[in-house]
């Protein structure tokens, strides 16, 4: 079963504003591959995993796993899809504290109505496979972080799912514990199964068959300044876009607005000749947190942050922080 992601866009509301962490993502992962979603916190890794798990419904685009069109499934079918087709390894292990390791692994089997004895046998086999055959009766509080994560991996494999999702699987592990978990994850990527791991831990890079960087790289290199002439109402950049340039207004006026969740706009400010805007996204590798558009016929020049600093002597990193607002 291959994984196909086409033009995937995910939006949600946060703090009263519409956020689009994933915008037009395309990805093909072949059966047996392990793909790493790499990026800083907030870049949309977990959001993408939620969509792959059928928990979040994307605003546009599609996710297909083999013949299954995940994005077209109704809610009930998505629950069934999570139950049978997806195994999830959570960042904080997320084991149920009142259940033993054996019971925690049985949970997805119970949810699927697997008879008690069969579920028990399968869970015991999986715990044996992850090297915890002697810890079946222990509750999570009696297990180390690495052992808990291995129980979580065993739980994710309960139905032998063709898609395994792992969210920051090494986040709570020390270097000794991480070794076994990494090897287990690598072993999971076998023919008939796709493994998607979201992480900001670059130690995992050698594991991956494919790496997807979800954070836009901070623009560090000098680029040729980009001069643009805008008519009134023309958009310089939109909220949620990736951003590489800082803009200096040469002529006219640029207004900065932020789109609220209800579609209305909040005016953050405006920039006239000699003022600059849009520095945060290129500087820190973030998406644009506001939309900039020409209020009148205007002329602007875009610079890389380094070029901007060299030309104007402004240390953008030390400038007062604002949401891409004009200075």
């Amino acid at each position, binding site marked *: 079963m291959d994984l196909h992601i086409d033009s995937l866009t995910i939006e949600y509301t946060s703090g009263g504003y519409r956020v689009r962490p994933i915008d037009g993502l395309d990805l093909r992962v072949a059966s047996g591959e392990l793909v790493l979603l790499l990026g800083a916190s907030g870049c949309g890794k977990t959001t993408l995993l939620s969509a792959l798990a059928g928990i979040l419904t994307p605003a546009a685009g599609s996710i297909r796993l083999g013949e299954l069109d995940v994005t077209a499934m109704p809610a009930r079918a998505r629950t069934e899809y999570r139950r049978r087709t997806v195994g999830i390894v959570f960042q904080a292990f997320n084991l149920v504290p009142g259940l033993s390791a054996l019971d925690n692994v049985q949970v997805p089997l119970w949810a*699927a109505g697997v008879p008690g004895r069969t579920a028990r046998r399968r869970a015991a086999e999986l715990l044996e496979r992850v090297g915890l055959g002697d810890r079946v009766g222990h509750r999570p509080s009696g297990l180390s972080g690495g052992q808990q994560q291995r129980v979580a991996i065993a739980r994710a494999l309960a139905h032998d799912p063709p898609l395994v999702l792992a969210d920051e699987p090494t986040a709570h592990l020390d270097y000794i514990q991480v070794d076994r978990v990494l090897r287990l994850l690598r072993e999971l990527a076998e023919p008939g199964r796709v493994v998607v791991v979201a992480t900001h831990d670059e130690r995992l890079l050698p594991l991956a068959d494919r790496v997807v960087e979800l954070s836009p790289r901070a623009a560090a290199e000098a680029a040729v300044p980009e001069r643009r002439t805008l008519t009134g109402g023309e958009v310089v950049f939109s909220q949620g876009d990736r951003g590489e340039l800082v803009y200096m207004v040469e002529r006219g006026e640029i207004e900065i607005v932020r789109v609220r969740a209800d579609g209305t706009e909040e005016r953050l400010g405006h920039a006239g000749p000699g003022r600059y805007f849009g520095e945060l996204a290129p500087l820190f590798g973030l998406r644009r947190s506001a939309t900039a558009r020409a209020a009148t016929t205007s002329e602007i020049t875009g610079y890389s942050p380094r070029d901007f600093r060299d030309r104007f002597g402004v240390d953008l990193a030390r400038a007062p922080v604002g949401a891409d607002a004009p200075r």
Partner: protein
Amino acid sequence: MWRVSVRDLLWRRRRFAIALLATGLVFSMTLLMSGISSSLHAQNRRIVRSFSADAWVVAKGTAGPFTASSAIPAAVSDAVAKLPGVRRADPIIVFRSTVGPGTLRDVNVLGYRPGGIGAPHVTSGRGLRAPDEVVADTTLGYRVGERVKLGGHPLRVVGLADAVTFYFGTPTLVLSIADVQRLAFAGQALASAIVTRGVPRAAASGLHVLTDDQVVHDLERPMKNSDQTLSLVNALLWIVAAGIIGSIVYLSALERGHDFAVLKATGATNRSLLTGLALQAVVLATAAALLAAVLAAFLAPIFPFTVSIPGGAYVSLVAVALAVGLLSSLAGLRRAVRVDPALAFGGA
């Protein structure tokens, strides 16, 4: 998924035990209330039936022999005895007084004609034979041969009778009608009512014939307020029980929010989670009902009169406990349904 809920209950067993004890106590109170109410009604029926009378003849306009203070001449019994359908008629007197020595205690006083209708069933000692003798209810704690003073008049206890109580468990002294006439009517030959064997086919002028059921109904009329009070207290106790179970289930849902998100993310349906939570409420309510039955059995003897809990009260307790458990867990259930499985992602 019910297994998850059962194991969660076991894991939080201390909290469960505390809730079980509290709910069990509350439920036992409701059982005792039912027992008290039932016993009070039962003793009214018992005292009326104990006369084995076919009819009660009272002054016209009088509600009944136990609640009215109006009297009729005792000699009326002779006229009543001659009425068609009547084989025998005897006068009785019912009034209330206090008995000593020592701390005065309220008592019902029943006067009957020795050898006539209304003789008590003596369980210890003997019946009345001579003046100034009394048969006492066993709850008074007197011994046969003991001397007591009824309204200052000395009497000797010659016999004891069980369960001769009415008016909210007030114990009864049974005397000869002559003694009671001396105490209540200054020796005048008066009576509260005439009890008959055989039903008079026509009432004598100025008199009124009542059946046992009418007499019981009359006797229970003053209990209407206390019945309502008991029902109200019972309802409040159910609400307290619902509050305890509801808060336990709600707390459980609150604490397990993250678990629910994980379970949903791994494919558990809302229905299976709700079943699990409702199961916790039902287990708690049912266990509390069982504990209540045991507690009530221990607490019932503490009351100053016999509290016998009817079998139906146990059945209805279990039924109401289940309803209370399920209803009170609604808030917790609502919360569980609203948990977003996406919460399972992200940090601890």
